Every structure is written in structure tokens, then in C-alpha cells.
């Protein structure tokens, strides 16, 4: 790797459900991701990719093991500390966009900036939206935007606070191929321009191939990893 680790997971185990319905999702995951590195998490459905991403984002607590992200050990943080940590260090893009439907595009993007106490939140949000080509859609509500436009708003929101780490969970899963391709271009362009660490969960092997490294999961375990096209460039 040759880079300082931005994300370190050691011996992470996670089960969900109770009693007979309890499912062991993540099994003894140990993984380091370097600063500025782009890592693709691939694997079949139910292999634990999205859950692993949530553990990295502090949205899910592991049963055992340690998670250190951007120098912060997440295990010891309470819910509010985790929220503040995400606000400062992590941007997340979801497959279903997860925009707030009652907020305009501009308000959606300004929200993390406002939460971080940034005074010119709306000016910066406007700039972020312009950078993803949505200057003409600032005051539209999510339902008034196409899927691709919604995901671009989500991308602008994820980047708004200039996070060191960007996590994307199947960002093209709900989009058609052309629109998806456009989003991917934006993702990688931002990664390159901003030098962020990027973790990308995807089913799309071609997309994963554009990352520096591809980590394969199967039944909750890391099944192997290979260098991606990004590393070879």
C-alpha cells in the first residue's frame, strides 16, 4: 500500500437479529485502507458489503473487533460523537439517494455544512451543486428531479464538507447505464481532484476495476483482494 491507513478494521464481527433469527453477517474482518486510496468492495448479494460500509461509517457497531477511521477509534464513541465524526470526516452516497424530500436540492446539500457550523453554507452548497451540473436545479425538491439528478445532489451533499473519506453504497444501482456512468465519472473525478479516500460498494466488476484495489467478500468474510485498474495507471 505504501500509504498511511485511513481506515483500519481488526477482527470485526457483527451479527444481526436475535435468537433463531440471528445471522452472523461479518466474520473476523481485518482490513486496512490507505489515505487517498480507492477501494472497491465486491461480492454477491448478502455477502456483507453494505454492512461493512456501515461499520466503517459508524452507522453500525461491531460485536467485536476495532474500527479506526481517520485516526478515530469508533468503538469508544457514543452516538453523538459518531454523528460529529461523520459530519467532519465522512461523506456517504446511498443507492436510494436518501435525500430529504421536504428540502430543496440546495437545502439538502447545505444541511451537513450547516450542521458543521459553516457560515456560508448555502454559497458552498450552491458551488457544489454547480460542480455536478445542477446550477439550474437549486430550488427543486427531490421529487422534481430525475434519478440521476437526485444522485448528483447526493454526491454534492457527500462532498460538501470536504470529507477525507467518501463511502458509496451501490451509487449506480438505481440508475440506467448512461446516467450511472455519468455519476461514476463524477465520483472518480472528485476522488482524483480532492484526494479523498474512497470506498465503493458495487456489483459492477467494471466499475470496481477502476478502483486502486478490489476487496472480495463472500459469506461475511474477505475472500481475497486484487489490484484494480486505478492502481495500475
Amino acid at each position, binding site marked *: 500500500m505504501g500509504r498511511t491507513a485511513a481506515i483500519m478494521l481488526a477482527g470485526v464481527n457483527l451479527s444481526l437479529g436475535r435468537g433463531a433469527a440471528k445471522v452472523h453477517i461479518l466474520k473476523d474482518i481485518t482490513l486496512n485502507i490507505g489515505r487517498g486510496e480507492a477501494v472497491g468492495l465486491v461480492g454477491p448479494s448478502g455477502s456483507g458489503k453494505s454492512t461493512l460500509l456501515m461499520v466503517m461509517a459508524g452507522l453500525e457497531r461491531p460485536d467485536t473487533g476495532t474500527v479506526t477511521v481517520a485516526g478515530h477509534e469508533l468503538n469508544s464513541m457514543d*452516538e453523538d460523537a459518531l454523528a460529529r465524526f461523520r459530519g467532519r470526516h465522512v461523506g456517504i452516497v446511498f443507492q436510494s439517494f436518501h435525500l430529504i*424530500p421536504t428540502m430543496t436540492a440546495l437545502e439538502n446539500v447545505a444541511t451537513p455544512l450547516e450542521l458543521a457550523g459553516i457560515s456560508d453554507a448555502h454559497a458552498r452548497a450552491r458551488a457544489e451543486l454547480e460542480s455536478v451540473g445542477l446550477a439550474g436545479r437549486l430550488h427543486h425538491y*427531490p421529487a422534481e428531479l430525475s434519478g440521476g439528478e437526485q444522485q448528483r445532489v447526493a454526491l454534492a451533499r457527500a462532498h460538501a464538507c470536504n470529507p477525507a473519506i467518501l463511502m458509496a453504497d451501490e451509487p449506480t444501482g438505481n440508475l440506467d447505464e448512461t446516467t450511472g456512468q455519468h455519476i461514476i465519472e463524477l465520483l472518480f473525478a472528485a476522488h482524483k481532484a480532492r484526494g479523498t479516500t474512497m470506498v465503493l460498494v458495487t456489483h459492477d466488476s467494471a466499475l470496481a476495476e477502476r478502483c486502486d484495489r478490489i476487496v472480495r467478500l463472500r459469506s461475511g468474510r474477505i475472500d481475497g483482494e486484487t489490484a484494480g485498474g486505478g492502481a495500475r495507471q
Partner: protein
Amino acid sequence: MTPATASPATAQHDPSAARAAAPRPASTGAAMVFALRFAGRELRGGIRGFAVFIACLALGVAAIAGVHSLSESLSEGLAREGRTILGADVTFTLIQREASAEERAFLAGQGTLSVVATMRAMARAANGQSGLVEIKAVDGAYPLYGTVALDRDMPLAAALEARDGVFGAAAEPALFTRLGLAPGARITVGAALIELRAVLRSEPDKLAGGIAFGPRLLIGEAALRQSALLQPGALVRWHHRLRLGDASERNIAAVTAAARGRFPDAGWDIRTRSNAAPQLERNVERFTQYLTLVGLTALLIGGVGVANAVRGHLDRKRDAIATLKALGATGGFVFAIYSVQVLLLGLIGAAAGVGIGAALPFVAAALFETAIPLPIAPALHPPALALALGYGLLTALAFAIWPLGRAHDVPVSALFRDTVAPERKWPRRRYVAATATVTLMLAALCVLMAYDRRIAVIFVTVAGGAFGALWLVAMLLMQLARRAPRPRATALRMALANIHRPGALTPSVVLSLGLGLALLVAVVEIDGNLRRQFLAALPENAPSFYFVDLQAEEADALSAFVRARVPQAQLERVPMLRGRLVSARGVPAEELRPSPAAAWVLQSDRGITYAAELPRGSRLAEGEWWDPGYRGPPLISLEKKVAEGLSLKVGDMLTVNVLGRNISARIANLRHVDWQSLGINFVFVFSPGAFEGAPQTEIATLTFPGGGDVDEAALVRAVSEAFPGVTTVRVKDALEAVGQIVSNLVLAISSASLVVLLSAALVLGGALAAGHRHRVYDAVILKTLGATRARLVATYGLEYLLLGAATAIFGVAAGGAAAWIVVTKVMTLPFTWVPGPALLAAGGALLATVCFGLSGTFLALGQKPATVLRNL
């Protein structure tokens, strides 16, 4: 799939055939059946989200059904117990005079006659205590119907008979308490010595009497005659009661007609068992109307809950609607499906309300039979229940058609959107027209079924105005939040944004809480003003005492007596007689159509006086005051509002019966009277000489200018000792007696207002609960973006605080304005703003909003982000 008669198979294989088959039902009935089938399928998922809808309707309908059922049961009870309440089949009441021998002989010839005399007098105890009593002097035939209950096993005759020259009496417990006596003690009434032999538990004919200023003292007729209270002109009412052998309505009417025909100038007030307590019946009807309006307010607030529930339901069904449309359903058919659902659910809610309301008279009779001195005859009253059901269904429709109309235009493209853009569009014209029609029907029903239509019209106008005003307040609030400068504090910034966003809670909270609070503030303000009027400090220079039944020869002596004891006091005396208005402009009194404000003048006999000069406290409004030395044909001065209410003007002729003599007089002028001064004021003031030779008494007021430290009880004792025939009424006591009744009425209305508050709380809770799913989503996303729990609580708390505060300000202002209208225009009393209870109510509403809202927020904060995100 539209309503289709073509076979599905055909439609599947040949789309053109399906189109040609024109999937339309054969008739409207078939279309309804089709819609009903779909509505049933749609409801398979249960009626989640409709709890508030059903509860709001049930509550409002229950209030109206309950009030009407109880009122009907009471009216029925009054009718059934009419002869007991009246104490006879028919009663002939005379004021200040007994029936003549000829009249008495006529009455005695009709059936069993019982004569009862009632008057007020002073009772004096050997311990020096004295107090006002309501005397009822009865003969041996009393009671003709019902029974008198005493605290001991003793026939009434034994309790009242004279033993060793001392008459007996039974008295209500309050007299024993006031005078500090026990059964067996003796009191003096006028010149009669009376032994209190028993405690009077109940008298069957009590309800037919008016307001009691003192406890009842039941004595024999002989005792009254010996008391020396029956002086000429004394305020005594003689009730000649008849028990008829043939008590049929026809015979009662025949006896009444014969009495009127034979003694046209008798001046008696004739009452039959079917109108035993007309004043009480009128009050019951009036009170029923007020409570119905309170119930309607609850229903209208519930309507906001109905609209919220329907909107929420249709939001959840958006995909299903879009799917139906994608499969060929028309907008009209979609409207029909969901209208049927809403009607079915409305029927469930209204039926539940009807059930609760129908049970109320039974519950009231079972629980409070001994506490309420009213004859409740519990029964089912289908017309009253149908009316309540009608109110409920019309309210449900009035509030549901609008959101249902929007379902007509749900686009199929909704299937391709995760969430839906806020709908700001109006529904189609036909739905707007239907909403307007149903609303007008509701208003018309309210006015047409009202006892007093003027008040119903005021209510409908105020309710419509309040809805409009609250909607404007909500819009204004959202605009203000949108345009407010961006505050530095993030929580405040986000709270402001939450207030103006599409789908914000603002309209729901403002409408439900605003209406509820406005009503509550109106009730507490009216209550405060009435209490102030009757129970608080008296107006400056108001008299402290009235002395009634002053004989002319003792009036001067009383003046001297009082002046010697309290030299600073002012004693004002005027002559007083009682008279009944017989006709005006040649129209008999019973055919006059007075305005509600003037009806009281015709309901009973009125005090009248004569004066050479314009009385103090009066102001000439129209016409000329007569010359002080005027001795011509009788002239009369009339109070202006009464004159207006009876459509009388200067120059019209009036006939008044005084002591069995009809006296006609021309209206010379109209006066404004300041009733609040509590001085001696009369509606009718005659010119001097109109009653020359007629037996009369004087009435006097005693005023202590600037108050003064006077031992009022000692003065009452001294006056009643020295002038046993004079009745002393302490103004404070009289006002307290009236105030107590007013307080009880206001308490009943306040209790009924709880229904409104409950409804408002339901709607508020429902609106907040409906928004809960969105709150959880927002909270999770915001947490993902870095929001801490404290920040979310601060944001939501501030939002509720701002919303609650704005609504509270409006609610207090609107409630205050409504109270001002009621107090000054309906009750014609001066209005004073009573800040304490109103601000308390506003504070309570504010607290309730924040607590309700935050309780939901805490639930939202408790959600684990990953769990929610995984399920989104």
C-alpha cells in the same frame, strides 16, 4: 382496471376488444357496488392511520348526540312530571291579591282546590341571628301531587299545625345553618312565632319556582295570616292549584278558557301541567344549543384530523392509485373507491359517537339521580341521534372531499418516483363545488336546527371566520419563516426551515391547536367576566341593601331608624307595585313576538313605579318627560331596549294589569337605564296619579357612599327586629345566589369544552404521529450527516415552540375577541380582559405542543440509523 363487464380473458387477448367493451358499469348503482368491492379490497390491510379519524368523529358526534339525548330526556321528564312539578293540573297565580270569593268559588267548582302563597320575608331567631327566607304557606290540600319529604317520620300537617298557639314549620337545612339552630328551635317571622319542627328534604313542586335568595320555609296558611306580612301591596303570590277530576288535556283547556272568559280582568298567570316550568324548559333548550355549539366546535376541530387522516391514507396509497390508473381506472373511479372507504370509516366513527351519546342519559340518570334535582327520563331519541349522525357524516365529507379530489389526479408517474413532490394544486372544480355544497349543508343544518338562530348564525360565521383566519395565520407563519433572515444558530435555522417546508406540520398544528385554544380562552374569559360581574367588587355607589314590602306608614320610621344608626348612608325610596303587561298596541301579550332580549318582560309580572321626575340612573332617549305636576290620563315611560324588542314607539298604547285592574297608558318617552348600577330601576315608570288609591308598598335602597366600615349583619338584625314586616335583601347575598347559578352553568360549559380540547389534542397528536415516519427518516439522514441528538432535539423543540407560540398568540387574541363579542353583544355586560386564566391556557397549549412533539422526536432519535437505512 376500470369497472368492466367484459371478460378478463377477452381483455387480455385483445386490447382493442377490451376498449370496445367500454368497462363502464351499467348503472350508478353497479358503479357503487364495483367501487365498494375495490374499497373493501383496499381495506384488507386494516384501518391503520384511521384511529384519529374515527376518534375525532366519535368524540364530536358523541358530544352532540349526548347533549341532545340528555336534553330530550330532560324535556320528556319535565313533561311526564309536569303535574308534580306544577303541583297541579292547572294553576292560577295572582300577585299581591287573593282570588275573590267569586273567583274562588269558580275554581273550587272545577275540582280539588289548593291555595299556596309564596313570598320573601325575614326570619329572626332568639339568638339574634336573622336571615331572608322564601316562605311557602300551604293549606291542608297541599300537595295535590307528589310528596313532601321531611327528615323525620311525621305527617306534613303535624309539622305545620299550631300547638299551644305556636305554628310549626319545616325548613331547608340552609336555614338551620345560617341561623345556628336545630330542629325544635323557634323563630319569628313577621308577627308569628314559629317552631322549626322538621328539616325539609324535598318539595315536589320546587322546580316551578324561580331563583331562591334564601332557604325555603314551609308553613301553614294560618301561620302566614297571623304573621302580619299580608299587608296591602305586599309582594305575595297566591297560587290557586286545581286537581281536576277529568284531567284530560281537553278538560284542562276547557277550564282555562272558561276562567279567561269569565274573569277577563283577573290578571292571573295560568299554567298547565304541559308548561309547568316554561322558564326551565327555555333554559334547557338554550343550554342545549350552547352545548351543541361546543360539540360542533369539537367536530370541526376533528374535521382537521379527518382531513389529515385522509391525506395521509391517500399518500400511503399513492402507489396503489397509480397502479390502478396504469391498469385503466379513471380518476373518478379512484375518487369513488376512496370516498366509499372514507364514508364507511366515517360511519363507524359516527356510529360509535351515537352509541356513546345515546347512553349518556342512562348513565346520567344512574349516576347523578340524587345529585341533579331534575326529572331525567332516559330513553333513546332516534331524531336526536340521527341529527348527530348527520352532523358527523357531513363533517367527515366536508373535510375529506378536498383531499379525495386530489386522488383523482394522482399521476401514473408516481410509480416512478420514490417520494412525491408536494401537491399545491387545487382539486378539480367538481370537488371544490362538492366541498362547498357539503359545508353549506352543514352550516344550514346548524342554523335550521338551532333554538336561537341568531346565535347559530353568529357561530357559523365565527367558525368560518376562525378557520379562514387560522389558515391565513398558518400561511403567514410559513411565509415569515421562509423570508426570515437566516439566523446564526443552526438549530433555529433548521427549525424555521421545518416550519415552512412543504408537508410541514404548521397548518395542522395551527388549525387544531388554534381553534381549541380560542374556544378555551373564550370560555375562561366569559367565566372570568361573569364571576367579576356577580361575585367580585360591586360597582361604586351600588346599594348594599334593598328593603322590600315597606308599608307607607313605616317607611319614614325606617328612614329615621337607619339614619340614626348609619348617618353616612343614603336611603332612597320609591313606590312599587307589581303588574303584568296585558297588551301593547291592542295586541294581546301572548300574541306579541318579542326579540329574545326583550322576551323576559312578558314572562312574568314586573315591578312598576310612578314618578314625577326622571328617575336617577335613567337617561331620556326619545320623547318628552311629563310635567312634574301632570295629572292627566296615564302616561308611561318605557326602557328603550325593551321598547325596541317589542317593536313599540312613543305614542303607542300599553295595558298593564295591576291588582286585577287593567290600566292603559300612552308611551310618552323611552329611557336608557343603567342596570349595572344596581339602583332602583324599572322597565315601566308611570306618570303620577296612575295608581292613586291602589294598595302599594315602597322599596328602598341603602347605599354607603365610598363603602365604609359597616357591620351589615348587625344592621340586618336591628332592622328585622324593629320592622318585622320589612324584608331585607343584602345585595351581596342576592348577587351570590345568581352568581352561583351562573358559575354552575359556566362550569358545565367549561366541562363540555374539555371535549373540544380532547379533540384538539387528538388532532394534534394525530398530525404529529402522521409526520413521525418522516421525522424518523429526517433524523436518521441528519444523524448520518453529522447531527447530534441534542441538536435534533433543539431543532425540533424550537420548531414546536415557535409553532405553539404563534398559535397561542392567535388563540388568545381570537378567544379574547370571541369572549368580547359574547359578553358585550349577547350578554350586554361590560367586558374586562382577565389575563391570568387566558395566559395559563396559552402556556398550557404551548407546553402541550412541545411535549407532544418532543415525545415523538425522542422515539425518532431512538432509532438506530443502520436499521432504518437498511429498510428504506
